[in-house]
């Protein structure tokens, strides 16, 4: 109890009211501000309980405005975090969090670069000021991307799961002879991507703007007229003139726009047979000797005759060795009925060189037959393009499905490796499509300058790509794992960072291309707008 004599008497020299130098910590805006960490990694925090529509996703792009620069950063990961130490969150009872400002999610983002007030984009060599505000990047902040996009539209920019329809993603024709890889597990939309890609190429060809011819060999019969509800390339009637079709299927070939595929016997070489089988050393020797012993134009017939067998034996080959060769050659000829006296190859080359999309439809053919045909056509193309450069000739891109068969380590298909290594010199590029990039030779993969990655679950596949890609994909590991069907990461030299994209749905793209104004440049007017129709 206060004793009365302890009190200061009224009126005595009571000091003026002492002023306390108070410091008030109030609800500051601690979230959505850069808090760390370096030039190569940004951290900021966001509320732990964001509503669904504001959730942060891997791959989402944020902008950080800092004086005259706008930094762009892509979310790589998020972590639960708090200002509390220790294992408080595993020992607590109940879920009634009171202090939302103390519990948050830490967002880890990778800098993409920075945009100056003049709109120029460059890689960032500095870091944003601490506590610089972070916001979701808006469409106008991606405008600079329009300037670096190419002419082959494939989809839209994607910001997390959100589509940025104002920014079409388009590959550069000029990069196609630097090879392209399309990587995705089954069902992620490889075929849809290829049809969209081919449709854009057809459009360019029909408008006389094409810079390369595209060869697609389709063993599944899905590109020509489509399958079930999916449409094919022939459905793009508006730009049909940009497509040349060849088919081994009589019914398909009865269509006036489709030529029945034929390869002349004289165009088949022993090395085309060689890549189809495993050979013993004597058999390999015998194969190598064929072109020396027989005429190049008639060797297929000659070797199957009794005289042919005798000539081979005269050269020292055992009859059993030669008979294996002959039996295998007969099998190949039996399985590939398109080997005839006439040939479509000359036409194919002409169409490619004029910049068209050439679709070779070989439904119901075996893997081996497909490989055989691809080998013959590729060799023919490479030889044609090795000849003296013609002024008006367009470059060529050869598509290989299940590319690991021919570009894998130790595969005996040196032809495709040669194209991968040397094709660029002659204007020939490869478009390798595979579910298993881990099986593709790492050195060959490093030659691929354009990568379209559409979801890879296997970490060995991702690692192989990351180690070989020209742009750094290692930080995108989580995003690649979490890509949904139709989503892709597009990495190409002409675009300054790997771009997240949503690939157009082919049927939507067809519909809009069909209505396109004749001379309007699709990319220039901001891509098509399927969702706005």
């Amino acid at each position, binding site marked *: *109890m*206060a*004793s009365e*004599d*302890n*009190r*200061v008497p009224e009126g005595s020299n*009571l*000091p*003026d*009211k*002492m002023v*306390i130098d*108070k*410091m*008030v*910590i*109030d*609800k500051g805006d601690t979230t959505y501000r850069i808090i760390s960490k370096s030039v190569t990694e940004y951290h900021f925090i966001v509320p732990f309980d964001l509503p669904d529509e504001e959730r942060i996703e891997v791959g989402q792009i944020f902008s950080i405005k800092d004086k005259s620069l706008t930094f762009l950063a892509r979310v790589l990961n998020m972590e639960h975090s708090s*200002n*509390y130490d220790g294992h*408080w969150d595993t020992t*607590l*009872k*109940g*879920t*009634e*969090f*009171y*202090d939302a*400002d*103390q519990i948050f999610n830490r967002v880890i983002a990778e800098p993409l670069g920075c945009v100056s007030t003049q709109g120029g984009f460059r890689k960032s060599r500095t870091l944003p000021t601490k506590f610089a505000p972070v916001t979701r990047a808006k469409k106008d902040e991606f405008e600079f991307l329009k300037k670096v996009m190419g002419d082959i539209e494939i989809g839209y920019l994607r910001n997390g799961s959100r589509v940025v329809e104002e920014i079409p993603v388009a590959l550069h024709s000029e990069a196609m002879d630097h090879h392209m890889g399309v990587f995705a597990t089954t069902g992620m939309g490889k075929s849809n991507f290829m049809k969209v890609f081919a449709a854009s190429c057809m459009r360019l060809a029909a408008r006389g703007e094409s810079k390369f011819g595209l060869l697609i060999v389709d063993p599944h019969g899905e590109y020509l007229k489509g399958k079930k509800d999916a449409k094919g390339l022939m459905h793009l009637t508006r730009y049909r003139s940009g497509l040349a079709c060849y088919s081994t299927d009589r019914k398909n070939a009865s269509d006036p726009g489709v030529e029945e595929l034929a390869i002349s016997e004289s165009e088949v070489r022993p090395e085309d047979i060689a890549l189809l089988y495993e050979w013993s050393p004597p058999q390999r020797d015998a194969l190598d000797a064929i072109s020396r012993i027989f005429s190049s134009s008639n060797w297929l017939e000659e070797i199957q005759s009794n005289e042919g067998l005798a000539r081979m034996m005269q050269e020292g080959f055992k009859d059993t060795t030669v008979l294996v060769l002959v039996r295998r050659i007969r099998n190949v000829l039996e399985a590939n009925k398109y080997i005839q006296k006439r040939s479509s190859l000359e036409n194919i080359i002409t169409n490619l060189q004029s910049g068209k999309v050439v679709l070779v439809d070989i439904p119901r053919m075996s893997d081996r037959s497909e490989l055989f045909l691809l080998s013959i056509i590729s060799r023919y193309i490479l030889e044609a393009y090795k000849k003296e450069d013609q002024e008006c000739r367009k470059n060529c891109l050869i598509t290989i499905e299940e590319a690991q068969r021919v570009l894998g380590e130790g595969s005996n298909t040196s032809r495709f490796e040669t194209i991968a290594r040397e094709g660029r010199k002659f204007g020939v590029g490869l478009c390798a499509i595979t579910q298993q990039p881990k099986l593709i030779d790492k050195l060959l993969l490093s030659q691929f300058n354009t990568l379209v990655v559409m979801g890879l679950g296997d970490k060995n596949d991702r690692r192989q790509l990351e180690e070989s890609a020209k742009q750094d994909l290692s930080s995108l590991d989580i995003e690649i794992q979490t890509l949904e069907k139709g989503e892709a990461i597009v990495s190409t030299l002409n675009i300054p960072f790997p771009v997240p994209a949503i690939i157009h749905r082919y049927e939507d793209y067809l519909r809009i291309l069909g209505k396109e104004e004749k001379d309007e440049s699709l990319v220039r007017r901001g891509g098509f707008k399927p969702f706005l129709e």
Partner: protein
Amino acid sequence: MLRENRLKVVAELMRDHISLGGIELFFRETQLCEEDFTVIEPQDFDGRIYAVDGSNVAICSWSVANLNLIRAGYAVYQGREWQKTVITYDDVFLADPRICSEEFDPYLKAFFGLKGIDLKDSDLDRLSTYFRELQEYIALNEALEEAHAGDLLIYDGGFDVFEPLRSVLHIIFKRAEEKGVDLLGISKSSSLSWGKDISLPFVQHTGRAGTLLFPGVPWYVGLKDKLVDHGQGRWEGETYIVRFAGRSDLAFRVDAPAYLAGHIGSALSRLAAYSRSSECLGYPHALFRAHRDIRITNQEGSFMRQKLIEVLAEMGLSHSQMRTLTQDFHDILEMRPGI
């Protein structure tokens, strides 16, 4: 040398201290009964909760005086929403019994109209505790000025304080009563004890008894007329043992000034509604926040110590002089780094 059976004896004693053997014995010896327990119905309210706390860290000491970093303030909540934390004092305090009245008196006069207190004979360590408590009371006073009738003002600690500052509390109680603000002191630890032969922990054992009798619900029990060793026990109010959340095993000592006697149940109901956070279940959340925002971390202490060395060095003191002055010989024996 410690014999094994000696340790066993001590362990048995500890067991007797910790465990509540039988509730009947506890009730018989403390005069508590089941009817003394009152179940709390947590009740939301529109008012604010002000939670006051303080912290002090020794910076250095030289046998006859010492230097402490002291901080005091309060956190403000509206329901479950933290509004702000106000730091009312954040400074060093030089504890020298001869001169420290100069540090106390201006505050006592300015805020409480008191003449000052004689601390010449006080223990050195206790001086900084007194000063921290004084700053906490000033924080209480500041919070009280900001509060409105019906608000809750809670303090981290008891009101059963030593004589020198009792007058200050008396004035705070009076101001709180006049303003219609409910003031409660909540102690995380308590020396309340019971038992004839040995000192048994009263709060823990009451908590255990409450859990057995009223599982899963919050409750409180008043200690008026109970056989509990209150220590000094001379202050103007009542002490309660309170479990704020049914799902928590923890009970706390709660001191309430006498003016709250008529509506202690209402005050505790309102506080219990905001003592259910996951961050610190069963403890008033505002106090949890106040503790975290106001505490002085070891890092801050080290930083202040370093700055002090720099200032002393600028004044021409050598490190060797500083060491000689400030190092406790125990530190030398223990090979601890000193100032």
